[in-house]
């Protein structure tokens, strides 16, 4: 079971994520959009939208630091285990609160408003379920760090890096707390959904806007 969950599923997820996104871009760019619903319901987005996205950026940054940077690097930089733990919680809890609360507010908005219900597709609903559970298990994992000390940087981080090196070390993932197990499964499912959902707009952040002239002319 572990072999499938930690040795096969992540690669399936990566493959679908990258391949599916390329195919969607090539075949269905016309449907590639943020799917913004501010037009249908504006007031209740004012807090929830920025909260959710800020929480997301903070959480994303935290994952980069916690997973991609090996422990010996931070320790060499003079950050010991206690300091790291403190920093992770000091950043992780506000991020989790913003992310989770923003998500819940967005979901209340989406499912309590007639105009929004019409604008919610089946794939949206599936995505919200999986994404919501991913966020909740992730936040639960962060919070659990306050009580029992499970050092994910000894287990999950080296495993994830071994995935990236194409030689998965499944042994790291034995005896992982339940929240983290679920979180691993759920992020794989989110990645599989990514190319087929509105999530693709993450890739459309308009960096090129800063480099272009104001007025765009094109020939027919």
């Amino acid at each position: 079971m572990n072999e499938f969950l930690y040795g096969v599923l992540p690669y399936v997820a990566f493959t679908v994520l990258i391949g599916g996104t390329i195919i969607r871009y090539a075949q269905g760019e016309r449907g590639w959009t943020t799917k913004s619903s501010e037009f249908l319901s504006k007031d209740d987005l004012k807090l929830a939208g920025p909260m959710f996205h800020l929480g997301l950026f903070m959480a994303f940054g935290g994952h980069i630091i916690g997973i991609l940077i090996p422990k010996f690097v931070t320790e060499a930089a003079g950050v010991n285990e206690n300091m790291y733990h403190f920093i992770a919680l000091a950043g992780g809890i506000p991020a989790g609160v913003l992310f989770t609360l923003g998500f819940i507010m967005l979901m209340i908005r989406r499912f309590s408003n007639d105009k929004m219900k019409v604008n919610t597709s089946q794939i949206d609903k599936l995505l919200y379920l999986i994404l919501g559970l991913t966020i909740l298990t992730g936040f639960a994992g962060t919070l659990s760090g306050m009580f029992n000390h499970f050092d994910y940087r000894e287990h999950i981080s080296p495993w994830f890096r071994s995935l990236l090196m194409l030689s998965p070390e499944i042994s790291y993932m034995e005896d992982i707390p339940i929240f983290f197990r679920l979180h691993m499964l759920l992020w794989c499912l989110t990645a599989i959904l990514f190319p087929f959902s509105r999530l693709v707009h993450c890739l459309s952040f308009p960096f090129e806007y800063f480099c272009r002239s104001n007025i765009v002319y094109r020939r027919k």
Partner: protein
Amino acid sequence: MKIMAQVAMVMNLDKCIGCHTCSITCKNTWTNREGAEYMYFNNVETKPGIGYPKQWENQEKWKGGWQLKDGDLSLRTGSKLDRILKLFYHPEQPELEDYYHPWTYDYETLIHSERKNHQPVARPRSLITHKRMDIKWGPNWEDDLSNGESARNDYNLQKMAQDITLEFHDIFMKYLPRNCNHCLNPACVAACPSGAIYKREEDGVVLVNQDGCRGWRHCIPACPYKKIYYNWKSNKAEKCTFCYPRLENGLPTICTDTCVGRIRYLGVILYDLDAVKAAASTTDPQQIYSSVLDVIKDPTDPAVIESAKASGISDAWLRSAEISPVYKIIKTWKLALPLHPEYRTLPMVWYIPPLSPIAKKIEDRVYLPDSKEMRIPVAYLAELFSAGNTQIIYQTLQRLLDMRTVMRRKELGEPMPQNMEYEINTYEKMYRLLGIAKYSERIKLPAGLQGVEHDKLRELQGSVGYSCPGGYC
């Protein structure tokens, strides 16, 4: 000097009867789809009024168009960085209810009702949620001032710092048909983070690339005319296309084609691309009108023709520019004005301001009143068409009055007035074009596909149609 061609439109407001045929044919052609129910690429407003969407002229609210900041032209909605921060929530974004909540009626109840004591009623139903709804506002709720008080909230009146009376003997109104202005300096294009909106080099039509649009919606508040719409179903921006598939085949836009009052003129003008930014940056907004006239170039000037050929404008297009009715009205005779030039987008849909009703002083036995005595306050027209410069409105109205004076005297066999601004036969030409011109005189577009000569088009007969006939597109 870099000469570019632009298809421009003139609307003669004196002749608009407010029938909405343009809006309806446009709607049937372009926006009768799910997600586009509320859109009118072309709509006709009764002025004074708050319009569609509500209060579209209030740029304090929407931050549309351009402004001069320390002498530099910048988008009123903020710098690029400011606007990136608005990606997750854009405070100046209009909502569906700012336009209106689109509806249909339960027509089936009229047909399938059981036998009852009372006649069945078709009740309104939302086209968005498909639930019963109360109609509170519509795309033309103020038609012929029918909403009464909302006319007072017209933003132009606030800027004039004047109240108007809704008493019958002093009331005034006019119609204002509006579609995308296909501006020379379009704010929507500049605001698009994805670079999906562009101005076509060949004819100046501003289009949204439906593949490239990511639904960031920054174009919508940025357009000061609120002529870009968000499709809530496809989640992309849509706008008036100037019926480009028709233009490419030498046909006018559908609103022009079907206009009952024959108020619309369509033709080619040549303009100097290098002068656009300077004209849009004119310090005094009341002078923008004359700056734009300088950007529009004389199609008979050899230097202009040479530069036009250098930038690849075909002979067919140059011929169209030479005989362009809109060039005559806008530049030669100076009869048309841009809508809200102070937005600095340099709109290319122009308006001949209305004289009617001219008989305000009928009790004084004056047939043609002075331009200062019009029923529609000149200050109001100035807010709409010249950034508040009443002098420009007086001059324009006076030319129209002069034309009527000349034609009246000619008809009555009276001696012609002396010291007119133009030659007598110019006024006769003016009368012909504004009053009785046929379809072919009002609309002068290069025949056939862009840049493709007529003979070549003949070779294409029997090919697949305008999608890509003969591989010329």
